[in-house]
Structures are given as C-alpha cells and as structure tokens.
C-alpha cells in the first residue's frame, strides 16, 4: 500500500521535472507575429455592416484585424466608457450623460464620426393588406397610452391567416440604439413604449418574428429586409404622399425615419484606428454600405 502511494506520487513529480527540462531548452522556432487588433463593439443594427467592413479592410491591410461584436448600442457605449472598446458603433447619437461619463473615464470627450445612414423600415406580414402608415399612427400604436391597438383602427378589417385583429407589436430590447432612436422619433422622447410589446434581441429577430406572425408589426433596419415580409411606405403627416425607404429617399430626407450611424472612439484615435476610420469614410468603405442595405453618406 505504501509503495503504491509512493509510486503514484512519483509519476506527477517526474512529469513536472520532464516538463521543466523541455522549457529550459527553449521553444522550437518562434511563433508567428501576432496580428494587431482593433476592438469594434456596439450597435446590433450595424453589426452586419461592421463585419462587412472588417472583412473588406482585411483585404486592404492584412496586418490589422478588426474584431467585431454586437450587443447593442448600449453595450458599445458601456464598453467605450469601461475602456474595452477601441471603436464603439452607435446607431444613435450619444446622450450628454454618456459623453460626460466617458470624459470622466478617459479625460477627453469621445470623438464622433458619422459613417453612414440607415433607414428604419416598418415591417408587416406578407399577407397584411395595409400598404402605408403615418408617423402619427405609428406613435399611437407604440406609445404608452396610445389609442390604436387593433388593425381595425387602421382600416384593416381582417388579415388572412389571423385569428383576431389585435396588433402584435414587435420591438427591441432597451439596450438597443434602434429602440432609442424609434422612441425619439416616433414615440416621443418624453414618452415611453406601451408595455406588452415583444422585445427582440436583434434586428434580424424582429424581421423573422414578423414574417411568422400575421398580425405583427415591427421596426428594423432597411438592410434586414427579406422576401418574407412587407415593407410599409411611411408618410410624415396624414395626407402627404407615402415614401418607401431607399437610399435615394434617405439621402434627400423624404423618408422620415432615417438616422445617421456613428462610430465613437474614446478621445483622439490611435493611428491604426484613424487609418481604419478614414478607410470607412473613403469611397471604398462607403461602397460596402450600399452592398449591405445601408445608405452611404452621399449619393454616388
């Protein structure tokens, strides 16, 4: 019994001794040089776009690796303040409190770069007979205390495939820049959303849920459109012509629900980060916006 215990103890000691010898003789060959990385965190709306930019930039400058993660604009802002992000993507402007917190954490206010536009499309189920909606009606649907709760209030008697006429509101979780932007423009900054909306995690989830639910209405980025949903035309005021979201209507501001997309750096950016952002603002970077369903800063 004693001998076997001694043997058992001896084996790991021997292994440890052997391992030590190996490291003393040195690693066999140097490891390849590590790629420098830029941490790009934030907006879920911009996540497809940021990923496409990262891949394109990888072809332009292979020594640089851009690591993109989503989580929502709120997450990006928190990462900016905590110092874990080199670039924070935001689908809304930062609030004064957030700027103040970032300034307190890093000494200077974050630098803001507008990198493109995004049109917020209003999606409904493919079989929904409605074709257009006004900003006012959208507000009444989504606002706390709003008066529209059934499709009949909008003139839609019934939707094929649906059991009842109640509007199913699909929204985003409250860390989302899209959520904040929609609240600012449609619900009213001083108001809140009506409780009971299905708060989805990401832009793609909103479109997927709407495509499966006949009585649903939801808002998401224009770039997330699929063939299974219908996009409503939007009028600024009842009686005005309804505008379809597109690159042209966003750039000439005729589509009322469009917003700028931003990238923020904590203070002045380092040379690598500045090079990346300059590339994003260049014609090559702006072309990526068109390919992914977003709107470039100016028409070609």
């Amino acid at each position: 019994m004693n001998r076997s215990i001694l043997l058992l103890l001896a084996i790991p000691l021997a292994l440890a001794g052997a391992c030590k010898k190996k490291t003393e003789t040195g690693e066999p060959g140097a490891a390849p040089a590590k790629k420098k990385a830029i941490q790009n965190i934030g907006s879920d709306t911009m996540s497809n776009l940021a990923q496409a930019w990262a891949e394109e930039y990888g072809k332009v400058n292979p020594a640089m690796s851009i690591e993109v993660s989503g989580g929502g604009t709120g997450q990006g802002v928190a990462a900016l303040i905590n110092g874990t992000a080199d670039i924070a993507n935001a689908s809304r402007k930062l609030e004064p409190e957030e700027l103040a917190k970032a300034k307190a954490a890093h000494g200077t206010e974050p630098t803001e770069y507008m990198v493109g536009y995004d049109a917020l499309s209003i999606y409904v189920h493919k079989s929904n007979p409605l074709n257009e909606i006004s900003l006012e009606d959208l507000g009444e649907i989504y606002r706390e205390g709003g008066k529209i709760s059934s499709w009949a209030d909008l003139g839609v008697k019934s939707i094929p495939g649906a059991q009842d006429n109640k509007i199913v509101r699909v929204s985003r979780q409250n860390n989302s820049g899209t959520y904040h932007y929609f609240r600012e423009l449609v619900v009213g900054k001083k108001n809140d959303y009506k409780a009971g909306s299905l708060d989805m995690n990401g832009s793609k989830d909103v479109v997927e849920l709407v495509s499966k639910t006949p009585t649903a209405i939801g808002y998401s980025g224009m770039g997330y459109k699929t063939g299974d949903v219908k996009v409503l035309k939007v009028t600024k005021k009842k009686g005005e012509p309804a505008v379809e979201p597109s690159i042209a209507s966003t750039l000439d501001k005729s589509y009322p629900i469009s917003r700028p997309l931003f990238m923020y750096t904590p203070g002045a950016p380092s040379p690598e980060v500045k090079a990346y952002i300059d590339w994003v603002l260049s014609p090559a970077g702006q072309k990526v916006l068109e390919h992914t369903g977003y709107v470039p800063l100016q028409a070609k």
Partner: protein
Amino acid sequence: MSTPAAQAAPRIRRAQRRAWEKVGERLIEVLIHVCGVSAILFVFGIFLFVLREGAGFLFHGLSLKQFLFSTAWYPTSQSNVRYGVLALIVGTFSVTVMAMAIAVPFGLGAAVFVSEFCGKKTREWVKIVIELLAAIPSVVWGFIGLSVMNPLIQRVFHTPIGLNVFNGALLLALMSVPIIVSIGEDALKAVPDSFREAALALGATRWQTVYRVLLPAAKNGLLAAVLLGVGRAIGETMAVLMATGHAVNIPHSPFDPVRTLTATIAAELGEASVGSDHYQVLFIIGILLFSITFVVNLTADLVVKGIRKR
C-alpha cells in the same frame, strides 16, 4: 498446562498505525470537512456579493412598493424612470408553475416506470435517452422554441403568437424532466426491498405497492427531485429569453407573451453602466430570485417535516 501468553518468548508488538498514516487520515478528514463547508460558504459568498452590488440603491432610493407591485418596467426612460417588476415576477411564476404542472407528472411517472415496471434492457435505453435530454444546451432549446415550437403552437392552438407562456413552459418541462427522473429514480431505489416484499406478502398489486408504499416512503427524495426541477426552471435564462416573447405583460392566458426575471437580467446587464441605478436594480432582481428560491425550498422542507410528524 503451561501459562500461555506470559511464556511467549518473542514480545507481541501491539498493532499500531504508523504515525504518518494517522496524520494522513486527519488531513483527509479535514479536507472533506472543508469541501462540505465550502458549499455553504460559496452560497453565502454569492449572496453577499449580489447584496453588496445592489445594496446602495436598495436602501437609499428604491421604492419597494413600486418595485414589487408596479407592472411598469421602464429603466431607460428619458422622462419617467420606473422600476416595477410585478409583471416579471408573474412571468417567472406562470412559466415555472406551468412547466412543473407538465414536468412533475411526466417526470415522476417516468421515474416510477424506470424503477419499478421496466425490464433491465429497456431501463438502460430509457436512462440513456433521458440523460441525452439533459445534455442539450439551453440556448439550443431556446432556438427550438423560437423556430420550431413557434409556428407549431400557432397552427395547433390557433393563437396569434407562438412565443408565449406555453412555449416557455414546454421547454422548461423538457429541461426539468431528466433531473426529476434521475433523482426520483434514485429515491425510489433507496427504498429497501423489504417494503416491496411486505406489500407483496399482503397481497398488493404493483400499482398499489407504488402508490401506497413506495411513494410515501420515498417522498423526501421525490420532493428533492421536484425542487431541483423547480430550481432549474426558475433559474433558466436563455431558453425563456428566446421562447417567451420577452414582453412586459401580465398574461391573461397561457398563450400570452411574458418576460421572466432571469431574462431581464441577461438582456439588460450588459448595457447598464457599472454602479448606475439600473445596474443596481438588476442586482436587486438577483436578490429577489435568491429569496424566491430560498422560500420555495424552505416551505417544501417544512411541509416534509409536517408530513413526517404525522
């Protein structure tokens, strides 16, 4: 007869343990004690950590009445910040209760089947399949709820949305059943065979044996099994985040969407800046979850003690 031991020439040495064996024995005992106590220490440590993070706002500024009794959950409002978690509490409870209503009969039934009525070979297979159910990650369950159960529920029950209490409860039941079956089966196996033999001798049928003799004898273990299932259901986050529709809403039917306490913490903690009111309220929700689990376990223990006294 010559005197025995006194005449024995070689002195008999009393059998003694070596010194290092005694020390080693003590050491291992102490180690095992520490492991046992560490479980309690970890639980306390976690509770204290969560309490510390949320304490600031809990004692200075949070209106407990609004917190516990208001359904308005607007932590990021620009004009009227409200922290009311009543709808979330109702959400957690409705999903858990419904899940247990589905899981307990199935789980206990399966445990009884596997332990009493099953042939040896079937038992192996059933146990393997049930353990496979337990191995599925919860985010995969959430995905199943979102893409498979959603249209299925819409079609079968003719509801407007398939992401609701029922969807979440179904997934939670499927996740809790393996726990209830494994531990329930162990509890039933622990009942000594003499009970079964006695029942047989009295002329009881197999079902009578189970219902009148084994279930009451194993009730502590079965209650533990159910409690662990409940604990799993209350604490589940990813699956309910994806399958319940995540809507702040008091459900009026099992086909209404809801939001649970756990999903709220998971969705919102990432963006709440450290130390802010929103961040602290989320930790207070954590304290609430802790307390709910504690109360559930305590009541169950007292109920068992009460039954035992009778």
